[in-house]
C-alpha cells in the first residue's frame, strides 16, 4: 500500500458484507497475537535464565495488549453485546484464523526464538504498512504497535544469532527449529476472501508485495547466524481459513477452561 492514505468512505461499513469482511480480516490479524501470546504465557517461570524469561513475558504482554485493542474494535463493529473476552474465549476451533506457525509448541528455546523471529519480521513489516490504512482505528493501532514490534524483532534476531553462532549444540538445535518451522512461513502471505476485499478497499496492506523483502531479511539474518537456509518443495497453510493443527484444540481447551466451566460469570 504505497499510495497515500485515502480515507475510508463513511458509507463503506453500512454494507453488511463489507463489515463482515472487515471483522474476518481483523480476526485474522488479532488471532495471531492471541495464540502467540498464549504460547509465550506457557513459558513464564521456565526460561533458561531470568533475563530471557522476563523478556518473553514482556512480549507475551505486548501481544495480549495488541490483541485486546483489535478485539475491542471488532466488538465495536459488531455493535452487539459481545466483549473482547467473548471473542477470545468463546469461539470454536474452526473459527480461529491465526496462522499455523504461531500454534506450534514450545519444543525448546530454539523453537521459541525461531517461531518468534519468523513472525516478528513479518509483523514489523505489516504494522509499518498498516499505518497507511484507510481505516483510522487501524492506523492508530499500527502506530501504537510498531515500536514494540521493532523491539521484538531485535530480541528474537539477536537470540537467533547467539544460538546459530554459539556452540555446536545450539547451532544444530536451532537449525532443526528453522527447518521444521520454515514450512509455515509462506502462510503469512496467504490471503482470504476477506483479506482481498480489505486490500481492495485500502484498509489492509497487500502483504504479498512484501513477500520477497521478507524472505530476503530472514535469509540475511539466518546467514549471519551461520545457519543453512532450508529448501522446501511444499509449504503448509490452512490456519487463516480455520484449518488448524492438532495443537489448536489443546490450546483452546486450556485457554477457554474457565469461560466454559463457569459460563456467564464475571471475574
Amino acid at each position, binding site marked *: 500500500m504505497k499510495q497515500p492514505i485515502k480515507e475510508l468512505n463513511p458509507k463503506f461499513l453500512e454494507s453488511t458484507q463489507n463489515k463482515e469482511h472487515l471483522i474476518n480480516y481483523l480476526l485474522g490479524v488479532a488471532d495471531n497475537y492471541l495464540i502467540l501470546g*498464549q504460547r509465550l*504465557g*506457557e513459558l*513464564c*517461570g*521456565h*526460561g*533458561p*535464565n*531470568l*533475563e*530471557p*524469561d*522476563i523478556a518473553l*513475558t*514482556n512480549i*507475551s*504482554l505486548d501481544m*495480549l*495488549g495488541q*490483541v*485486546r485493542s483489535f*478485539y475491542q474494535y471488532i466488538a465495536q463493529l459488531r455493535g452487539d453485546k459481545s466483549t*473482547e*473476552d467473548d471473542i*477470545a*474465549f468463546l469461539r470454536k476451533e474452526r473459527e480461529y484464523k491465526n496462522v499455523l506457525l504461531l500454534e506450534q509448541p514450545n519444543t*525448546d*528455546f530454539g523453537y521459541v526464538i525461531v517461531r518468534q523471529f519468523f513472525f516478528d519480521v513479518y509483523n514489523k513489516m505489516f504494522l509499518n504498512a498498516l499505518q497507511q490504512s484507510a481505516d483510522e482505528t487501524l492506523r492508530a493501532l499500527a502506530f501504537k504497535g510498531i515500536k514494540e514490534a521493532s523491539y521484538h524483532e531485535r530480541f528474537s534476531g539477536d537470540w537467533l*544469532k*547467539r*544460538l546459530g*553462532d*554459539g*556452540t555446536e*549444540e*545450539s547451532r544444530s*538445535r536451532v537449525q532443526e527449529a528453522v527447518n521444521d518451522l520454515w514450512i509455515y512461513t509462506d502462510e503469512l502471505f496467504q490471503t482470504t476472501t476477506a483479506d482481498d476485499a480489505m486490500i481492495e478497499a485500502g484498509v489492509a496492506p497487500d502483504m504479498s508485495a512484501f513477500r520477497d523483502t521478507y524472505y530476503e531479511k530472514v535469509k540475511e539474518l539466518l546467514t549471519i547466524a551461520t545457519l543453512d537456509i532450508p529448501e522446501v518443495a511444499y509449504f503448509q497453510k490452512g490456519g487463516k481459513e480455520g484449518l488448524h493443527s492438532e495443537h489448536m484444540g489443546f490450546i483452546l481447551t*486450556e*485457554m477457554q*477452561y*474457565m*469461560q466454559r466451566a*463457569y459460563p456467564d*460469570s*464475571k*471475574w
Partner: protein
Amino acid sequence: MSEAEIKSLEAQFDAKIARDEKIEPKDWMPEKYRKTHIRQISQHAHSEIVGMLPEGNWITRAPSFRRKVALLAKVQDEAGHGLYLYSACETLGITREQMYEDLHSGKAKYSSIFNYPTMTWADMGAIGWLVDGAAIINQVPLCSTSFGPYARAMVRVCKEESFHQRQGYEIMLSLCNGTEEQKEMAQDALNRWWWPSLMMLGPTDAASTHTEQSMKWKLKRKTNDELRQQFIDQTVPQAELLGLTIPDADLKWNDGKGSYDFGEINWDEFWQVVKGHGPMNKKRLDDRRNAWENGAWVREAASAYAAKQKDRKKEIAKAV
C-alpha cells in the same frame, strides 16, 4: 589481623548499625553478618523465583484478558524481584550460579508457602491477598535494614507487593460478588491458604533460633509472633468485608489485649513442609531444576557467542 583489631572493627561496625547507617558491600563486615545475609537474601530471591510457579500455573487459564494480563505482569514482577535480590546478594561475594546450585541441591530454602498447589482460579486471589499480605508484613521492616543493597531492593519490592496484594483482594471481591459457585471457590481457597499463610510468619518465638541476632542487624524489627498477630488483626476485617469465614473456630476478638485470639497452628505440618515433604516440594524443585538444565545449552551458546564477538572486535582493532 589481630584479635584486638577485629574487636575494634566489630565495635565500629556495631556502632554504625546502631546509628542507622547502611553497611555497603565494600565495607568491612563480620563473617557471620555476610553469611547470614547471603542465606537470607538468597532465600528471599529463591522464594520469588519458586513463587512464580504456583501462579504461573494459571496464566494460560486465566478467565479474562484483564486477569490474564495482570497475572502475567505479576509473575513477571516476581522475576524482577528475584533478579534484584540475586544482584544484591552477589555483592556479598557469591555468584548467581552458586545460589541456583544451592537451591537445586536443597541446601538453600525458599518460602514453604509455595509448596502448596494452586488448584482453582480463586487461589490467585487468595495468594495475592494472604500470601503477599503476609510477605509485606515480613518485608516492610526490611526497607530500613542495615545492609544497603538489600534495603534498597526491598523498597521497590514492597511497593510492588502492596499492589499485588490489592490485586489479589480484588480477585476475591469479584468472586464474592459473583455466583454461588464463585463464592464457594473463594471460601475454599481461604480455607486452604489461611493456615499456611499464618505459618509464613515463621515458627513461634520460643522455637525461633535467629531472632536475637537478626534484631541487632535490623533484619528483624518484630518477633514472628508479633508479626503473626499483626497479620491476623489486619486480615480478619478484610475477610468479613468479603463475607468469608476464617477457618478457625477459636478465632475471637479479645477486648482486653485489643487483638484477636486464634487457634493452635499445626506446627507438625509446618515442619513437614519445611523439611521437604509438602504436597508440591518435589514438583517445584523439579520445575526449577528442569528449567535450569534445559536452559544450559542456551546459556552456553550466549557465552560462546559473546566470546566470539569479543575476539572479532579485537581482530578488527588489530587490523585497523
